[in-house]
């Protein structure tokens, strides 16, 4: 009796075991529904995320370039005449790539300075820096970290330590700047590194030097700065 009972049990269990088609079907259904949900959330949040990034960048530009009320994007690329003739051109496109920089203007539309971006390895991951540059006075006017993953509490002082950030305000940029041990600063082009975050501080200085050396030959002669186009980003609103 017990034996037959067990037999029928195993038999019924075997007949109940789902075939591969059912397994594949349930996986496919789950994957399909999950895909739809992921696509919808992506579409729903896409604009906000883009907006956030653009706003962050806009705020950073206005922060590193004082007294600037409007800005426009400049892209270093070929103009219509063809190859081998790269120059700075005003662009309105969204997004940002490595060949992009910004020009800031005051309320009368007069050119003030450039905001130059640079990327480079930090202590843990790429640091993305934006700094303002006054070509007329050869001064760095300020520095903002756009993106970094430095150690919380140590490396992140490159943007949290106001003493360090403040050193980049009105910093003469005649020759390359140099990071020195805190308190050892003796020359104009030297920066006091942060105690406990020497690598991150040196990385910031290196990135700025590299970006500066890359961009300064590209900048137009004084007086030939790109003029302000009609549609520009203002400080108060997004587009005007």
């Amino acid at each position, binding site marked *: 009796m017990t034996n037959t009972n067990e037999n029928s049990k195993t038999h019924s269990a075997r007949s109940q075991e789902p075939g591969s088609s059912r397994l594949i079907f349930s996986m496919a259904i789950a994957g399909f529904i999950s895909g739809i949900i*992921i696509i919808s959330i992506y579409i729903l949040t896409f604009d906000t995320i883009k907006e956030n990034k653009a706003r962050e960048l806009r705020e950073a530009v206005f922060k590193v370039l004082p007294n600037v009320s409007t800005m426009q994007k400049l892209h270093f690329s070929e103009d219509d005449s063809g190859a081998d003739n790269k120059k700075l051109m005003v662009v309105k496109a969204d997004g940002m790539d490595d060949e992009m920089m910004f020009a800031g203007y005051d309320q009368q539309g007069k050119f003030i300075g450039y905001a130059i971006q640079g990327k480079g390895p930090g202590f843990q991951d790429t640091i993305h820096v934006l700094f303002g540059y006054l070509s007329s006075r050869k001064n760095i006017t300020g520095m903002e970290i756009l993106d970094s993953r430095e150690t919380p509490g140590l490396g992140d002082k490159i943007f949290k330590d106001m003493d360090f950030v403040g050193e980049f305000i009105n910093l003469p940029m005649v020759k390359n700047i140099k990071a020195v041990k805190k308190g050892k600063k003796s020359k104009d082009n030297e920066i006091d590194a942060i105690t406990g975050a020497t690598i991150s501080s040196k990385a910031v200085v290196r990135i700025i030097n590299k970006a500066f050396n890359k961009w300064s030959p590209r900048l137009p002669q004084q007086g030939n700065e790109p003029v302000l186009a009609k549609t520009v980003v203002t400080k108060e609103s997004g587009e005007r």
Partner: protein
Amino acid sequence: MATDITAYEEMIKGLWRDNPVFVQVLGMCPMLAVTNSAINAVVMGLATFFVLVGSSFLVSSFKQWIPKQVRISLYIIIIATFVTVVDYSLLAMLPAIHKELGAFIPLIVANCMILGRQEAFASKHNVKYAVMDAVGMSGGFMIALFALGSVREILGVGAFFGVDLFGANFEPWVIMILPPGGFLTLGLLLLFFNWFTERRRQFLDKVAEAERVAVAGVDKNG
């Protein structure tokens, strides 16, 4: 009425008696990685809460249709979908905090506490119990994260939720916000938790013993 009491118990057990961190020691990866400040800990706790409750609800609702041969893959699909939703929502609503939490939001998928609850509980109980269990477990996880995050932020930065506590003369204990500080704090919290549980058990034993003696005494006299 009786079912209400057990559902309530399912929730309470996760908060303290079966706390996923202090008792089961699960989900250690986010536990150690993102608890360098109280706000990070709370956001991570909330994200885990959303994912766990959502997944438990779905797994429990569809448990009849989930073939047991592919159940783990299906659980992972469900969990990963919720995690993606959390990831994009945070990126849209709290970009600053998303930046701090970084890779650890997508890694909620691999939080063994969540998969563990699906396999051990949600797939075997009805929706009500599954959700209560998920609320309790993620609540307990959040309490643990918050405890660790507060301790580390207070000692390591001298602040709580970004508000400075001790003034300029406080020399922050930097190691607390670095990874070793996470291990140290977690170890000490586990020690405290176990000590407390042991003391409580001894106390209850003593009470039970006293009661037994009293009852025996009454019996003898009576």
